[in-house]
């Protein structure tokens, strides 16, 4: 034990005297909490940007060919006289997807909360490699700058979709885009490095730095989810980096990896991209599931239902995610026999997902539900993720996918899992851990208003997209009115657009609530939600070094409403009534 004592003593000593310069403290900080907040601000800005792009898209889709209000400010190369150009539209789609996936949701889930929560929740003073952690943020910044800069270069920004299918993405003469696509590749390679360094940190920290008593099966589900997610990031991102580099070479130094000429293989890009891409989409949902589990248990004042099967479900989804990528390529000319195998593996992901869904329901069953804002978002997550998940089953069935592939049915699916899933969870998580970040609570009233309006307009926006898809409405088309069979859908499109504008508008409530609460929010005590996690042990906001002495963990997370307990929650660092088990229980190793 001497070792532990020694290393931790240093940390604790550090916690008391915090004599770091402003720069060290807030800019080039190695404190995991500050880095988390830095990621938070960056990715929220990108979220807003991605949303803004979506609004411009929606204008064109709802009101094709009409001049966009205020569109005049856009340069001739994008929207002469406020009317979008087709090439600009596809750059918008591409960048909307890219920003949302790589620069908004992924950093929000992993960059922000993995950083902020892991050390706090496992009882560690900081990450295993604080300096690398800082690097991972400051590497992400230039990547973002580069990705934004792409809009302003000769030839416009990348326009091959966020999936950048070759050969279109590899042949400037075909897409008219040269520099933009190269910026896209380079930016993603840089961002990839940042993500890899990050996940390396998270994995090492979770494995090696758990406080005494924090055995594997005492980890909160959010940490389990972040752990599996980090493994997915660690192993999936390098594939994208490698593929992006090859794509870059095809564009710049005349190689032929993905070009049909001289034996190149266009489908190889798709295989590489989706071999990364599907794990990626689970990277975008697993942490959300983790946060939701924490929040639902807290909001129901009940232990999570079936903790162990929840863990195994996370692991199961993480593993299955590696062997289903072909389901994005059913119609791509891929070997149809592969199509069969990928269909089966894909369908099976419904099983662990079902386990999670019903365990959340089981957790709420006979609970004492507290409808605080995080809980509302968590419930919405379950409700919406199920819709997105179930629509995934349609596409997993290869025959149905023949028809709905690359239609708005997919777009609906995307947004039900990514917005209805990930983003609702993020709104919930931000509200839930906001006090620990800034020492103040976000306004519950405006939180509820934002939730209600978002929930309504969100569904008004994306639910009808299923119908568009079922009627055959293709994705990524600039002007639906081109096709006779799509003309009857024009009203639906217009309806969606208006709902989308309102959806965007009400996000301002969140933005304001977020910014203003920082300064004027009600001061929060250590444990405003009466939660059991270790992150609530230190004061809010948590000081540098987190804990003044290393907490000891006595039991599983989520010990709410324990029969013998006086309060309706028992923090993990407090023994249960009559509990005599030793701290570091060998059980569950």
């Amino acid at each position, binding site marked *: 034990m001497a070792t532990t004592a020694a290393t931790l003593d240093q940390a604790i000593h550090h916690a008391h005297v915090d004599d770091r310069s402003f720069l060290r403290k807030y800019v080039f900080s190695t404190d995991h909490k500050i880095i988390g907040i830095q990621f938070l601000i960056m990715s929220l800005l990108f979220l807003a940007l991605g949303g803004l792009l979506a609004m411009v898209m929606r204008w064109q889709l709802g009101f094709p060919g009409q001049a966009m209000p205020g569109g005049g400010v856009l340069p001739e190369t994008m929207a002469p006289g406020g009317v979008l150009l087709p090439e600009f539209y596809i750059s918008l789609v591409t960048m909307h997807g890219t920003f949302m996936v790589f620069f908004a949701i992924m950093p929000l889930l992993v960059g922000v909360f993995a950083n902020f929560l892991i050390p706090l929740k496992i009882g560690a003073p900081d990450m295993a490699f604080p300096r690398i952690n800082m690097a991972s943020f400051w590497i992400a910044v230039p990547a973002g700058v580069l990705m934004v800069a792409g809009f302003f270069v000769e030839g416009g920004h990348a326009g091959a979709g966020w999936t950048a299918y070759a050969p279109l993405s590899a042949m400037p003469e075909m897409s008219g885009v040269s520099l933009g696509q190269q910026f896209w590749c380079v930016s993603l390679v840089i961002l990839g490095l940042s993500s890899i360094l990050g996940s390396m940190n998270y994995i090492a920290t979770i494995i090696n730095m758990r406080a005494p008593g924090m055995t594997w099966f005492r980890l909160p589900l959010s940490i389990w989810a972040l752990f599996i997610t980090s493994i997915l990031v660690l*192993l999936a991102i390098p*594939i994208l980096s490698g593929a992006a580099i090859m794509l870059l070479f095809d564009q710049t130094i005349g190689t032929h990896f993905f070009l049909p000429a001289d034996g190149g*293989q266009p*489908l*190889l890009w798709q*295989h590489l991209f989706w*071999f990364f891409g599907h794990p990626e989409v689970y990277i975008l949902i697993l942490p959300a599931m983790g946060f939701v589990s924490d929040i639902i248990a807290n909001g129901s004042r009940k232990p999570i239902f079936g903790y162990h099967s929840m863990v195994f479900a996370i692991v199961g989804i993480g593993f299955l995610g*590696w*062997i289903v990528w*072909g389901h994005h390529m059913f119609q791509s000319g*891929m*070997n*149809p*026999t*592969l199509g069969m195998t990928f269909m089966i593996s894909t369908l099976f992901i419904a099983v662990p997902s079902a386990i999670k869904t019903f365990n959340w329901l089981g957790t709420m069953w006979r609970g004492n539900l507290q409808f605080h804002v995080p809980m509302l978002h968590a419930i919405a997550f379950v409700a919406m993720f199920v819709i997105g998940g179930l629509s995934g089953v349609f596409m997993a069935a290869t025959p149905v996918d023949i028809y709905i592939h690359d239609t708005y049915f997919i777009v609906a699916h995307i947004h039900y899992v990514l917005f209805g899933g990930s983003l609702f969870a993020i709104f919930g998580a931000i509200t839930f851990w906001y006090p620990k970040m800034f020492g103040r609570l976000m306004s519950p009233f405006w939180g509820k208003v934002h939730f209600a309006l978002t929930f309504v307009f969100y569904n008004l926006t994306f639910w009808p997209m299923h119908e568009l898809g079922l009627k055959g409405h293709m994705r990524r088309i600039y002007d639906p009115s081109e096709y006779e069979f799509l003309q009857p859908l024009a009203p639906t499109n217009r309806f969606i657009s208006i709902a989308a504008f309102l959806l965007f508008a009400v996000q301002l409530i969140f933005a304001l609530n977020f910014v203003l609460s920082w300064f004027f929010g009600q001061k929060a005590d250590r444990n405003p939600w009466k939660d059991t996690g270790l992150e609530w042990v230190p004061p809010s906001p948590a000081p540098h070094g987190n804990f003044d002495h290393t907490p000891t963990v006595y039991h599983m997370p989520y010990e709410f409403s324990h029969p013998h307990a006086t309060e309706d929650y028992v923090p993990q660092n407090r023994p249960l009534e009559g509990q005599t088990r030793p701290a570091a229980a060998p059980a569950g190793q």
Partner: protein
Amino acid sequence: MSDAKRHHPNYLAIWAWLFVLTLVELGVAFLTIFSKETLILILIGLAIWKALLVALYYMHLRFENNRVRIMAIAPLPLAVIMVIAVITEYVW
């Protein structure tokens, strides 16, 4: 693990092995007695042998605990899955 004057594996012997195996590879590669397929199998076999020597002795996997070993081999199945699946594209 860190008390001074410990017994080390014979690193120089490993080095000699690697050297010899490389020579064998070079020799085999330019022989014409084998069919292309067997040649490839032999060469890959030799390469894996060398790789294992490096991983087990120079990277001490032989002396690490299982958790570290698992971490080291975890990605390999994924790599294999990917290559096998994509190669079937050509054989249908």
